[in-house]
C-alpha cells in the first residue's frame, strides 16, 4: 500500500446545514461541521442522538433532507456511495461470509483498476498492517471477533479511501480487547494519516482517541472541540454531564473582566472562574458553575485548603471502584458527587468532611 503521506489522498469533510428527517421526525437538526484533513474526529453522544445518521449521510447511505455535504471541497450529495471512495467499518464488521479473508480485502481493489499482480501484494500489506499476516486463506467465521474487526479495517483502508468512517467499531468487543483495539486503531490511523470519522457513545474512547470531538444530543451538535476543550470547557450542561460526572450549581455572575468571572453560587459562595472557561457568562446575569466530580476533593476537617473553595459536607454514599472512590455528599440540601483517587483509606459513610476545589478547575455556563 502506498501509505506515503505525500501521495495519500487526504481531504476534509464538510457538513453545511445538514437536516435529516424521517417522516415527521427530525433526526439531525442543521448540523454544521468542518473536518480537517487527516484528523481523527469522533461523533459522541447518547443512543439515538443521530450519530449513525450523520455518518450514513457522509457515506452516501442516506440522503440528507436539506443541506450540503462536501468531501475534499466537492459537493457529493448526488454522488452515489460506490463513487465516493470511502472506507467504512460497520459495527458488526459486515465481512462477506462466503469469501476468504484475502478475497474480502481484495474486493474493493477489483473496482479500482489495480493490476492483478499488485492485488496480492496490497492484500498482504493490509494484513501485515493489522498484524494478522497469516489469515488470508481463512473464512471470516474462522476468526475471533477482534480479528474480524481488524480484517474489516484492512478491507476499508486497502482501497486508500479519502475518508474512513467507523460506526462504533469497538462496541462488539469485550472490555480488554476494546482497549487494545483502541490503541491499534489509532496507531493504524496515524500511520496512514487518513481523515477519520469515528462514532461512539463511549466518552473515554472519544477522549482517548480523538483530535476533535463532536458532542451530539438529540440531533443537535452541542459542541465541537479538542478532548481538552470539551472536557474542561463544556459548552452546555449536557456536555458537562456526558463527559464524566459534573456538579452544576446554579447562581449568578457578579462581575467579569478579561481575566476572570466572579460567580456567586450557593453552598460555596464566591468562585473566581478563569475567563476562558466562562466565555458565555456576562456580569449581572444568571450563571451556572460546572464543577467536575474529579475536581471536588474530600479532605479531613482542618486540612490545609489554601487557594481552594471549601464547604463542610457529610458523606452519604461511598462507591468503591478500585483505584478511585465515588462519593455522594450532602452539602446543605444539595447532593454533590466527588470522584477521588484513593489516598490511604476512603472516607466512611456518615463522616463529616471538607469538600474543596480549586476555582481555576471550574467552568461556568450562562443561564439559570
Amino acid at each position, binding site marked *: 500500500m502506498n501509505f506515503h503521506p505525500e501521495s495519500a489522498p487526504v481531504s476534509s469533510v464538510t457538513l453545511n446545514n445538514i437536516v435529516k428527517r424521517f417522516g415527521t421526525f427530525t433526526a439531525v437538526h442543521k448540523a454544521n461541521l468542518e473536518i480537517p484533513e487527516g484528523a481523527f474526529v469522533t461523533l459522541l453522544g447518547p443512543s439515538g442522538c443521530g450519530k449513525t445518521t450523520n455518518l450514513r449521510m457522509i457515506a*452516501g447511505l442516506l440522503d440528507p433532507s436539506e443541506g450540503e455535504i462536501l468531501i475534499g471541497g466537492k459537493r457529493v450529495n448526488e454522488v452515489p456511495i460506490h463513487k465516493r471512495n470511502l472506507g467504512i467499518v460497520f459495527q458488526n464488521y459486515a465481512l462477506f461470509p462466503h469469501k476468504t479473508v484475502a478475497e474480502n480485502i481484495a474486493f474493493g481493489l477489483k473496482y479500482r483498476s489495480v493490476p492483478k499482480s499488485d492485488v496480492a501484494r496490497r492484500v498482504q500489506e493490509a494484513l501485515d498492517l493489522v498484524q494478522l499476516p497469516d489469515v488470508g486463506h481463512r473464512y471470516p467465521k474462522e476468526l475471533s471477533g477482534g480479528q474480524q474487526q481488524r480484517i474489516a479495517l484492512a478491507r476499508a483502508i486497502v*482501497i486508500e479511501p479519502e475518508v474512513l468512517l467507523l460506526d462504533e467499531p469497538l462496541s462488539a468487543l469485550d472490555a480488554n480487547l476494546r482497549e487494545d483495539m483502541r490503541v491499534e486503531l489509532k496507531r493504524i490511523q496515524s500511520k496512514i494519516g487518513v481523515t477519520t470519522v469515528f462514532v461512539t457513545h463511549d466518552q473515554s474512547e472519544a477522549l482517548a482517541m480523538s483530535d476533535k470531538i463532536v458532542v451530539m444530543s438529540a440531533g443537535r451538535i452541542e459542541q465541537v472541540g479538542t478532548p481538552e476543550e470539551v472536557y474542561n470547557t463544556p459548552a452546555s450542561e449536557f456536555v458537562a454531564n456526558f463527559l464524566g460526572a459534573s456538579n452544576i450549581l446554579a447562581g449568578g455572575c457578579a462581575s467579569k473582566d478579561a481575566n476572570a468571572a466572579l460567580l456567586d453560587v450557593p453552598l460555596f459562595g464566591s468562585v473566581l472562574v478563569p475567563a476562558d472557561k466562562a466565555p458565555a457568562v456576562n456580569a449581572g446575569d444568571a450563571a451556572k458553575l460546572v464543577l467536575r466530580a474529579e475536581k471536588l476533593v474530600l479532605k479531613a476537617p482542618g486540612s490545609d485548603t489554601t487557594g481552594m473553595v471549601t464547604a463542610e459536607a457529610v458523606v452519604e454514599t461511598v462507591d468503591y471502584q478500585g483505584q478511585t472512590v465515588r462519593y455522594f455528599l450532602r452539602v446543605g440540601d444539595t447532593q454533590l458527587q466527588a470522584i477521588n483517587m484513593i489516598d490511604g483509606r476512603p472516607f466512611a459513610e456518615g463522616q463529616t468532611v471538607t469538600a474543596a476545589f480549586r476555582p481555576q478547575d471550574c467552568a461556568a455556563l450562562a443561564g439559570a
Partner: protein
Amino acid sequence: MSVEKREARQPWILLSPALTAVTLLLFVPLLFILVYSFWLRTATGADVAGFYLDNWQEALTDPFYRDILISTLRIAAITTVACAVMGYPSAYFIARSQGNKAVLLLLLMLPFWISYIIRTMSWINILGVSGALNSALMALGIISEPIQMLYNEVTVILGLVHFLLPFMILNIFVSLDGIDTNLENAANSLGATKWQAFLQVTLPLSLPGLAAGGLLCFVLGAGTYITPLVLGGPRDAMFANLVFEAIITQLNWPLGSALSLMLLAVLGALVMIYNRYLGMAQLMKGLG
C-alpha cells in the same frame, strides 16, 4: 449416566413423537406399497400375492412410462425455473421492504387459505371458452370466436407456477432476510454498484434459499396429478396421473405401487444428488 450420554440421548427423546408418526404414517404404508408392487394382477381383476416382477418389468421397460416420466421432469424443471425467475424479485422486494414485511408475507400466504384444487380450477374461469379473458377479448372486438386456451402443457405449467410460486418466494425470502443489509452497503462502499453488489454478495448468499425453493418446487411439481387433471389435455398427463389412473380408475394396485415407487426413486435420487452437490459447495463453508 454421564452428561455426555444424557445429552446424546436427549434429541432422540425429543424426536420420538415425530419419529413415531413418521414411522406409522409414512414408512409402514410405504412398506405395504413395496410389497404390493410385487403382487400380480390377474385378468379377472383379482390380486395374487407373491413375488412377481411383472409390474416392475412393465414400468421399467414400457417406453410409454419412460416418455411420460421424462415429460414430467421437463414440466417440473420449466416450472421451477419460472418460479425462480418470477419469485426472486418478489422475495427480494419483500425482504428489503421496511415496515410492511408482515403484511406482504400475509398476502403471500393468503392463497393457502383457499384449497389448491379451487385455485387450480379458477383458471377455467379465466382462460376457459366462456372465461374472463375470452369474454374481454370478444367484447373488445379483438376476436370474434372464443379461443381454446386451456388444456395444454402451457396451462399445466401456468397452474403449477401459480401453485408453487409462494413456496419459492418464501424460501428465497427466508435466506435473503437473513443477509445483513450492511453486506451490500459494505460492497457499495468498496466501489461496487448496486447490481455488482447483488451479484457478488447477495445472490451467492441467497443460493441456499433458492436451492431449497427449487428443490421443493421441483419435487412438488413432479409429483402433482391435480393440475394436469384439471388444466391439461389428454396428452398432458404427468407421471402421478398414471399412478392415479392405475390405482383409482383401474384398481390395479400392484402396477400403481410399482409406478409410484419408481417416481419416488427418481425424485429421491434427485434430492440426494442435490444434497450432496450443495453439501460440497464452497459457499456453504462460509455460511456454516
